[in-house]
């Protein structure tokens, strides 16, 4: 881990060196002179080097968001091609092999390369701003996490472009994924790509967790965290626990395929079901990890447009954690038909039905927030409010699949396709589009166009429901999943045509949304610091925020820092005008884990190309492994090793400073 960590404790004592790393920070107001000094200290150098070397969380966040949206577009085009193939029975636009690669790549793209990174992007951008902090805890790790995500995406798509994309679904069941049945490089690209991407997810998650524990402004105790923090933090804890399961599974599969091990090979005593357990122990919690932060966006955004605090902050925050905890105990509901014993089926069935309870808490909280507020119907509000509707539809269909005997019919039919799209678009894509409208002014200093925003909302909302609501019925009428075509006598032609038409309307909605984003970036109305009169800390700094985020570190006295005067809940007030002035270089404040008491001054690392080089070295390493070319692998390994030496090379400038007065 990088040096500004809590573990590099400063021993008490009187030697010269220890004296030099202790000092008392000044407390004072912000001033123009201070802001200019901080700007010089924090700004990223111009030019290509600066672009590759930046460790600014805002820059990294935007990159995440842009890359993930590009992935959304690619995955969307793949979906449209599939919808053309399925528009009528027995069509021959695609061969079965092409279709199988397309549906697998679509799933992998949307789940791994869009849904999770987009939330990492928003969280990366927003966390330090929401915390009143200068940066994430580990800025270089943050840059690394992005570069690896990009490299892993390029790695997997290199496979797609040479015709060797994943072709056994995102779930990649063995033995079909074994060399014997799938001898191309398809599954090797996917396996190694997933292990590669897992590194990005893991280091990103570690960074979020340490940032949560150490980087909040003084006074931001855990009962004052915005819900998006609860969501992303919960997801990050989960990721640290579950990503090893899937990385291991893919590693074992790769060994099976390339080195004739027998982990999943029946002939050698291996177990196909071992794969399913490892995959779904990861896969189901992962589904929660890619919706909980987005639910947080709704919980934080909706109240701003309803002009009142969220109803039931504590139940919603705790429900976020409870969903995740229960989420660890439901993976077998993906395996109800595998012949497991009845008792374990009953247990997992009950858990899967119960998980509706914490989800319902969020839904009722959102409805009550609208009901007890004065909703102002902006485009962002529409996206957030539509989440409630889509989440409920996705929720009740999930409830149906939780019942084992019913699931035996529903599973692997289009009913489940409808369910998962209501969940993933409903509580990932729609909240993200709302969040884009909501935070775009903060990101760019300009407003998105409201009129075009409404048009894009109604087009996406209509298109989505026309495409996916009928799919429930398509499933109940017996259409199996993952089929490249279907016979005419199944009676499924007309309803599939409806879904195809809907999917194109949905695509037009996305197009309008992206046009709005691109146009508003340069032509939108100037936003000002707080165009929505929102209540959290990011709205107290300028739009876009300066590289150092806050000239002085604010002190927090409540959950609604910018609404305190109007709410009048207590007499305490957050102090955003005066605070620690940390300007002896790139400094940030570390606070205690629960109560956010100031503890240390952190010296943050400067921009550096080291993370980029490490990701590039890993790309070489993984490419070498893919083609089993050991010289290339060794070169990649050497680049990584040299780079890590440079990364960990001790630097006196990065030592923490303990407060001199204790």
């Amino acid at each position, binding site marked *: 881990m990088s040096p500004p960590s809590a573990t590099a404790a400063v021993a008490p004592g009187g030697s010269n060196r220890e004296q030099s790393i202790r000092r008392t920070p000044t407390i004072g107001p912000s001033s123009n002179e201070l802001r200019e000094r901080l700007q010089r200290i924090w700004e990223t150098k111009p030019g290509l080097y600066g672009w590759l070397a930046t460790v600014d969380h805002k820059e990294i966040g935007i990159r995440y968001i842009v890359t993930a949206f590009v992935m959304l577009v690619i995955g969307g085009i793949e979906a449209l091609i599939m919808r053309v193939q399925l528009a009528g029975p027995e069509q021959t636009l695609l061969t*079965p092999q092409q279709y*199988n690669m397309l549906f697998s790549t679509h799933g992998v793209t949307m789940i791994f390369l869009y849904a999770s990174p987009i939330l990492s992007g928003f969280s990366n951008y927003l966390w330090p701003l929401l915390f009143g902090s200068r940066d994430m805890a580990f800025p270089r790790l943050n840059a690394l996490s992005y570069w690896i995500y990009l490299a892993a995406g390029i790695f997997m798509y290199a496979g797609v472009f040479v015709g060797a994309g994943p072709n*056994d679904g995102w779930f990649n*069941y063995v*033995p*079909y994924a074994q060399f014997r049945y*799938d001898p191309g490089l398809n599954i090797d690209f996917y396996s190694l790509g997933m292990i590669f991407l897992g590194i990005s997810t893991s280091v990103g998650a570690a960074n979020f967790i340490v940032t949560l524990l150490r980087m909040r402004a003084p006074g931001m105790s855990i009962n004052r965290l915005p819900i998006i923090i609860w969501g992303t933090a919960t997801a990050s804890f989960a990721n640290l626990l579950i990503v090893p399961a899937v990385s291991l599974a893919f590693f074992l599969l790769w060994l099976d395929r390339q080195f004739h091990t027998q982990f999943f090979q029946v002939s050698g005593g*291996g177990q*196909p079901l071992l794969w399913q357990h490892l995959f779904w122990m990861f896969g189901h919690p992962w589904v929660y990890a890619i919706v909980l932060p987005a639910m947080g966006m709704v919980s934080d955004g909706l109240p701003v447009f309803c*002009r*009142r605090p969220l*109803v*039931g902050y504590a*139940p919603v925050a705790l429900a976020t954690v409870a969903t995740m905890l229960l989420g660890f105990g439901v993976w077998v509901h993906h395996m109800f*038909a*595998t*012949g497991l014993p009845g008792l374990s089926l*009953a247990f997992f*069935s*009950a858990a899967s*039905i119960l998980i509706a309870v914490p989800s*319902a808490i969020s839904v009722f909280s959102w*409805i*009550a*927030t*609208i*009901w*007890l*507020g*004065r*909703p*102002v119907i*902006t485009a962002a509000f529409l996206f957030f*409010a539509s989440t409630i*509707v889509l989440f*409920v539809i996705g929720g*009740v269909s999930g*409830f*149906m699949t939780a*019942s*084992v*005997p*019913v699931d*035996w*019919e529903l*599973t*692997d*039919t289009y009913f489940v396709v409808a369910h998962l799209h209501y969940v993933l678009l409903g509580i990932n894509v729609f909240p993200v589009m709302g969040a884009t409208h909501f935070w775009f002014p903060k990101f760019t200093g300009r407003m998105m166009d*409201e009129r075009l925003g409404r048009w894009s909302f109604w087009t996406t909302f209509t298109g989505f429901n026309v495409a996916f609501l009928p799919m429930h019925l398509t499933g*109940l*009428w*017996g*259409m*199996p*999943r*993952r*089929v490249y075509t279907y016979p005419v006598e*199944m*009676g499924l032609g007309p309803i599939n045509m409806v879904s195809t038409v809907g999917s194109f309307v949905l695509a037009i909605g996305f197009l309008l949304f992206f046009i709005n984003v691109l146009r508003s970036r340069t032509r939108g109305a100037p936003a000002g610091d707080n*165009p929505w009169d929102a209540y959290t800390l990011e709205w107290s700094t300028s739009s876009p925020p300066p590289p150092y985020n806050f000239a002085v570190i604010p002190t927090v006295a409540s959950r609604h820092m910018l609404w305190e005067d109007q709410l009048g809940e207590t007499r305490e007030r957050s102090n955003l005008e005066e605070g620690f002035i940390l300007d002896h270089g790139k400094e940030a404040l570390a606070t205690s884990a629960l109560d956010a008491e100031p503890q240390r001054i952190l010296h943050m690392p400067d921009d550096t190309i080291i993370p980029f080089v490490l990701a590039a070295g890993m790309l070489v390493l993984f490419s070498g492994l893919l083609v089993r070319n050991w010289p290339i692998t060794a070169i990649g390994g050497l680049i990584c090793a040299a780079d890590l030496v440079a990364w960990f090379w001790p630097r006196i400038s990065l030592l923490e400073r303990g407060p001199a007065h204790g």
Partner: protein
Amino acid sequence: MHPLGYLSGSGAQTASVVPLMRFMLIVSIVVTVVIVGLVIWAIMTKREPVGPRSLRTIALEHRDGVKWIWTGLAISIVPLLATALWTVAVLAKTGSVPGAPLTVDIVAKRWWWDAQYSDGATGERFGVANEIHIPVGRPVLLHLRSADVIHSFWVPKLAGKTDVIPGQVNAMWIQADAPGRYRGQCGEFCGAQHAHMAFYVVADPPLQFAQWERQQMQPAFPPATVQASAGLSYFTQHCGRCHSVRGTPARGTFGPDLTHLMSRETIAAGMLQNNPAALSGWVENAQIVKPGALMPNQHISGPDLTLLRAYLETLR
């Protein structure tokens, strides 16, 4: 109308499952309508015009609304618990086979279904492909094995899916309560022709089933015409490595047993009607009909095809 639709069924399993499914569907629709109604109603009655002023004031009239969350939860718990209990009841009811079942061994292969029957008295066995006959009103225990990858045995009108997993034998039971042809379909992605891995379960009245069983047990009749004899020798030479016809030297087990091919209504795993034109087309150009299938195109000359077809048509 929808041969694979499972909102209604004709089996002993679906008789327990369909009412639960319909109950859950109704609960789901009611919940959706109520929630959507609440959202729309709230927005319609409480909305403020968009403007600079509406985004400057804060609603202070309702300080706390957390009781609405608890009320909503309390109402939600009722259908959730009812469903959980009903689910366990259905699981208990469908868990074990009622009565004395007929046993059929199913082997799922890419991309077709091999059903093996054995006569309890004599221990004689016969195999059929993609058309599984069962007697009406009698439970049938299926032992499911896979020859290659994971498949899933699914006849929606009779029962839900059970995965067919290499290295283990899964069991399930079905019972048809009315005669008919029930379409089945592989329910787990298994590669190129997963889409066309269909089959039929044919439920016959008991007497008719016994007759069918007796007839299937017979080996093939020796060919009666010169043409058919020539067809048989062509078949033995070219097709016999993968296919078997009992009573001839063709003993291959890779592809379907063709002993009574003409007694089946469909070929190519439920994809084509079994008629001479479709049969010739399939033999010649299997890869065009089902790209990726394991049956290769036969580069067969016109006269040979005529002989072969003449023979296949004797396999009644």
